[in-house]
């Protein structure tokens, strides 16, 4: 199997957010999404809400959902693992759509990774019965809208895993 050579540009995610009608991004920046963070901050149609710990993000999104807004959670898989109780109580149990964009730290196309954050990411999502999509490159961008539409139809959280193996968002 070859290494990932195609690029996933932060603008691809931003275009998808605009298409969906996202109003708020609730996030903790990580090393791979810094450029995306800066890009989002420049958009007057988007309100970026930094939180202090990932578990806050699902709860804050619930409050915004109740208020009639369209929030998206943007975190890394390590933070998602920390957020189990919040995902349960503030997303799965309540019946509102929620798109969660999750950086797939440790992801590799070779199938084997030494990073336990990656090893436990998909088993975690399966244990919580959360459906997920993988986005690796620009051509996969439409999966973000697809995931969002699924979350609206099911009134459940749906995850998009960002598996940008080498390039990152921080160029």
């Amino acid at each position, binding site marked *: 199997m070859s290494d990932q050579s195609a690029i996933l540009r932060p603008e691809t995610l931003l275009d998808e957010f605009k298409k969906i009608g996202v109003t708020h991004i609730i996030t903790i920046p990580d090393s791979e999404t810094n450029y995306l963070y800066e890009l989002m901050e420049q958009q007057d149609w988007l309100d970026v809400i930094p939180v202090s710990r990932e578990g*806050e993000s699902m*709860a804050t999104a619930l409050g915004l*959902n109740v208020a009639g807004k369209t929030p998206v959670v943007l975190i890394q898989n390590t933070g998602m693992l920390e957020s189990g109780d919040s995902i*349960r109580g503030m997303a799965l149990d309540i019946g509102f759509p929620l798109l969660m964009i999750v950086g797939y730290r440790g992801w590799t196309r070779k199938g084997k990774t030494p990073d336990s954050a990656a090893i436990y990411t998909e088993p975690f999502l399966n244990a919580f019965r959360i459906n997920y999509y993988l986005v690796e490159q620009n051509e996969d961008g439409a999966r973000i809208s697809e995931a969002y539409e699924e979350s609206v139809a099911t009134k459940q959280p749906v995850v998009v895993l960002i598996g940008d193996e080498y390039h990152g968002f921080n160029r």
Partner: protein
Amino acid sequence: MIEAKKVFEEFQKHRGDSIVHVQGTSGHHWKEISTNPNKDITLGSAMGQSTSAVFGLALGLENEKVVHFDTEGALLMNLGVLASIANKKPKNFIHFLLDNECYATTGGQPVPNHEEIDYAMMAKGAGYPTTYNFTDLEELSIHLEEIMDSEGPVFVAVKTKPEIENLPMGLREKRKARTRLETINDLRRTLNIS
């Protein structure tokens, strides 16, 4: 220390048209006191995360005053939320903290460092522009109008008497209450949110 019920009775006089979120063992008193249940909401169902949810609600409803009655046990589980709130500084957000110094719902075990900790100082340090500390009902009553008229975020720590529940869960009094989703739907209907 002040009885939580008295705090709610005094607050009701100044509530106005605000949205109110109440949590914790003593929160059930509010249901008997509130005169506008359609603007009372329940969002909590994850440890320490109600405050984050109410914060999101305040950000999404900028033209509504949003009042949250937090508890110290919950806040200690999610202290970073103070910085998250202070960062966005929602002008419409009033954050009360009913501090009974213990986990009343599990039998009254003290929270860590319950006698020395100063939550208002922590909120101030996190960046809340206005904070208060009350141990006396009369003092609280005098300041409530000023608190409710202040630009948020405002943090108000109130020492309250614990109402400890020590029976096994199955033997406790069942209090009739709307479900979380019912309170959400009632609020959204009231505010014409689709």
